[in-house]
């Protein structure tokens, strides 16, 4: 956003950042704020920046009110709710010029809070809480709801909407509901009495959120697993993927119990480690169940050996990599797209894997379902490459839809009758010319039995150390990866071949790129955009790369992993590619892309001028 925005321009267009101490219950107040704005029909974006810790460390929540419906960060902070004295100084610094800072003035901090261009708003929240509520824990928790009340007055958020939402959360617990509503109203009243409410940045009703939901990507992916008919989920707890299995479990407890017996139509195993998790997924898939494991980068590192086995022995598997900051343990509660190369070529030997790149919780749902179809169609592991930003933040997305005519694609699995008619079954033979062989399941027919192995094997399924026999299978696997191009989701384009400049990106960068395209347009810079949704790269991607003379590859890692993969796996001319990289661990803001593109175009102009 331009810094010189007039106050009237700030209607439904500003950023609230809330600085809290983790473990104090601030999440529910922050979610309440965001959801109230959403219920008023105004698009919002929420991002939670939390520490890898349970209690006592700084944590931030950012709410962007965005009438345009942008889904990325803007890079601004218009009102800082500074509830953590430890981080006051840093929080004040972050406020954009002309902005506000709200703090708990029970303990005044005149020295710390000095900034001419920021309006400081003090509310004695702790004192008000102590005067009204009993018990230390209640006072801490209700202080959060009280600042939500203050913000409601300052930003003109409808109190009735907030009361309704509180009712939905605490409906059955009357005392709790009453004290929450009371705290909300105390805050609201205090602000009305002491400040000139509302501020120029404020919320006003719109109608842009009906038929939308606010959901996180892990929950949406878990729903995808439910709708894909996955019956076996095996996992080892790891941030930020854990909530995927938690959600799956919750859905199964409701929707997967046998109506007569109450018995489970699913199995969830919390494994002893990620090696066992992927092993059990392969065992279950080999035996004909749809199985998956959610994990993050460190888990993928551990799973490598089994992933190679699945590739070579051609066993379906769905792996969710909810990426976090690496290398090593890295920063477990921060986001990145840093496992691209790891996943694309996971395991020793010549291996290549199908990757899907959802851009949002919405796509987490649809691509999860597709991941199971692809894994069984192609008989190979399929990775859904989500990340912490998509996986753990609530995103506003169009309500998910389901087509009841959907039938799972179980791929080439021979039935008992089909096996019966065969003279002999050969597991790894390319009978259809698409490089995908036929499978049989254990327990079906003795003639369909074969020996699954990670050691050298022939197209007939037997052990081999013969070069020719080995190569027949290995070459077919390469052709099978080409076949995969026909099945994976195509890229999404915003303008094709209309501009000399193209932007290439994927996954959670999408929101920032789309906003950047708008911002660039306002500055007279036009670019086409391709969002890649899968690896292997299809012909549509090759075409876009060929059509543009300058290509920016936007991604969230240090080493330009997507650009590397594009360089290795397409015919693109390497010198056309430029990187725009963001790897701070926080989700990318559109400004990163705007600045990156403009800097390169300026430098190019200068280069041209010099050479002239």
């Amino acid at each position, binding site marked *: 956003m331009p810094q010189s925005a007039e106050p009237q321009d700030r209607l439904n267009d500003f950023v609230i950042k809330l600085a809290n101490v983790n473990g104090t219950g601030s999440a529910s107040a922050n979610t309440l704020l965001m959801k109230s704005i959403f219920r008023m029909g105004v698009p919002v974006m929420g991002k939670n920046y939390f520490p890898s810790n349970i209690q006592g460390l700084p944590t931030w929540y950012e709410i962007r009110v965005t009438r345009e419906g942008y889904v990325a960060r803007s890079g601004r902070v218009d009102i800082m709710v500074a509830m953590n004295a430890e981080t006051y100084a840093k929080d004040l610094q972050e406020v954009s010029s002309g902005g506000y800072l709200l703090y708990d003035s029970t303990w005044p901090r005149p020295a710390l809070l000095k900034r001419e261009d920021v309006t400081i708003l003090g509310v004695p929240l702790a004192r008000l809480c102590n005067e009204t509520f009993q018990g230390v824990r209640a006072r801490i928790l209700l202080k959060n709801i009280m600042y939500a009340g203050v913000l409601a007055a300052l930003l003109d958020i409808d109190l009735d909407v907030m009361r309704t939402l509180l009712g939905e959360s605490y409906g059955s617990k009357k005392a709790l509901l009453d004290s929450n509503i009371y705290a909300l109203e105390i805050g609201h009243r205090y602000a009305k009495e002491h400040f000139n409410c509302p501020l120029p940045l404020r919320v006003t009703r719109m109608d842009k959120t009906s038929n939308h939901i606010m*959901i996180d990507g892990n929950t949406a992916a878990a729903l995808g697993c439910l709708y894909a008919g996955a019956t076996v989920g095996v996992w080892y707890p790891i941030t930020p993927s854990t909530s995927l299995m938690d959600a799956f479990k919750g859905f199964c407890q409701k929707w997967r119990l046998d109506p007569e017996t109450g018995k489970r139509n699913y199995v969830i195993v919390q494994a*002893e480690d990620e090696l066992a998790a992927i092993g059990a997924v392969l065992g279950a898939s080999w035996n004909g169940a749809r199985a998956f494991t959610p994990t993050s980068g460190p888990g993928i590192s551990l799973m490598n050996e089994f992933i190679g086995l699945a590739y070579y022995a051609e066993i379906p598997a769905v792996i969710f990599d909810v990426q976090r900051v690496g290398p090593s343990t890295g920063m477990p509660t921060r986001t990145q797209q840093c496992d691209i190369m790891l996943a694309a070529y996971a395991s020793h030997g010549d291996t290549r894997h199908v990757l899907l790149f959802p851009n949002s919780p919405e796509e987490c749902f649809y691509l999860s379902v597709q991941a199971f179809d692809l894994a069984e169609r192609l008989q190979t592991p399929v990775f859904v490459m989500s990340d912490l930003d998509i996986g753990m933040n609530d995103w506003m997305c169009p309500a998910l839809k389901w087509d009841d005519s959907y039938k799972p694609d179980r791929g080439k699995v021979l039935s008992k009758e089909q096996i019966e008619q065969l003279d002999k079954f050969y597991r790894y033979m390319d009978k259809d010319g698409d490089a995908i062989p036929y499978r049989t399941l254990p327990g079906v027919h*003795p003639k369909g039995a074969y020996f699954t192995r990670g050691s050298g094997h022939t197209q007939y399924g037997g052990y081999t150390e013969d070069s020719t026999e080995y190569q027949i299978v290995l070459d077919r696997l390469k052709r099978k990866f080409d076949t995969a191009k026909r099945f994976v989701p195509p890229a999404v384009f915003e303008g094709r071949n209309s501009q000399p400049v193209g932007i290439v990106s994927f996954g959670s960068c999408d929101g920032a790129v789309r906003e950047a395209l708008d911002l660039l347009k306002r500055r007279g810079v036009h670019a086409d955009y391709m969002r890649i949704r899968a690896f292997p790269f299809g012909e549509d991607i090759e075409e876009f790369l060929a059509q543009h003379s300058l290509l920016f590859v936007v991604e969230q890692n240090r080493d330009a992993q997507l650009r590397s993969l594009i360089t290795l796996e397409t015919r693109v001319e390497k010198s056309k590619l430029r990187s725009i990289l963001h790897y701070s661990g926080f989700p990318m803001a559109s400004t990163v892309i705007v600045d990156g593109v403009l800097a390169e175009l300026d430098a190019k102009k200068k280069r041209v001028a010099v050479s002239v």
Partner: protein
Amino acid sequence: MSFIAKPKIAHPSLPKNALGLTRRDYEGAMSTLCAGCGHDSVTAAITEAVWELSLRPEQLAKLSGIGCSSKTTAYFVSGGHGFNSVHGRMPSIATGAIAANKDLYYIGVSGDGDTLSIGFGQFAHAIRRNINMLYMIENNGVYGLTKGQFSASADIGSKAKRGEENVQPPIDPVVAALTLGATFVARSFSGDKEQLIPLIQAGLKHKGFALIDVLSPCVTFNDHEGSTKSYSFVRDHYDEVVHTDFVAPAQEITAQYAAGEAMPVTMHDGSRILLRKLDPTYDPTRRGKAYNYLRDKLAQGEYVTGLIYIDEKSPEFHEVNGTTQVPINQLPYEVLSPGSLGLGKILSRYK
């Protein structure tokens, strides 16, 4: 050279089991192990046991890790699917496979390296989950495929082929399984088919995790003077404490036993095993006593064999999970998806 199919010529006079199948119908590919390898005797015992039980070949799923032992799943019952996975990770493959289809018989064949070193964690957790499988260790105290390094089951003082003496204390899989809560713990010797076959049958019919640690000498790297896993050493130092006879459901117990000597145990499918105590003071249903007995004998350099411990009552994996009766890989998609109507209900929370 498993791709060379053996000619299946069944002579009409060959005995048939209840399904009308001969022993030949339960064979697998030709073994490529060394001549005289203990593992081949175990393979023969498995073949015999499964034939006698009249299991349909496709009802058996054969799982293994990596090593000489793990190759053997290719050498029996070629009508059942086999899965030769990665080193030490067979238990996780078994866990997933069993989760998907609880109605097959699962037999895992592992070795002392595969189980007690690289795979010790997965072994322990398979026991903890009490997954319904027969887990056999072909235990020879050495790494055969990499030419004779000591394994974690090698005894202190046992000598390698070139004279090197093992100095690390062994991990005994039977002791480990007892302490981890295994519900069926047995030890046998590849050279004692009479003991081994009924144990395999009992293990397959046991509801839960059945371990049989089979002392199975390595003729190439660990069958010399000074080794405690050689044929001659094991023969001289193995001590059967409880002999097991397997009795099929319809069969009658005909043998006569002195009072207090025999102990029948009914398995979940109605078959029985008859335990004959060779040491009358021993009780294979008392875990603590079994443990002490075993430790005392080990200290004397004796391998206790037979069915050391059995518990048919503890719930296996699916009972604990509360899984539905139909194997979940056979549930129709319609019962798995809440459909568009369900989605509407689910999403109301997120509005």
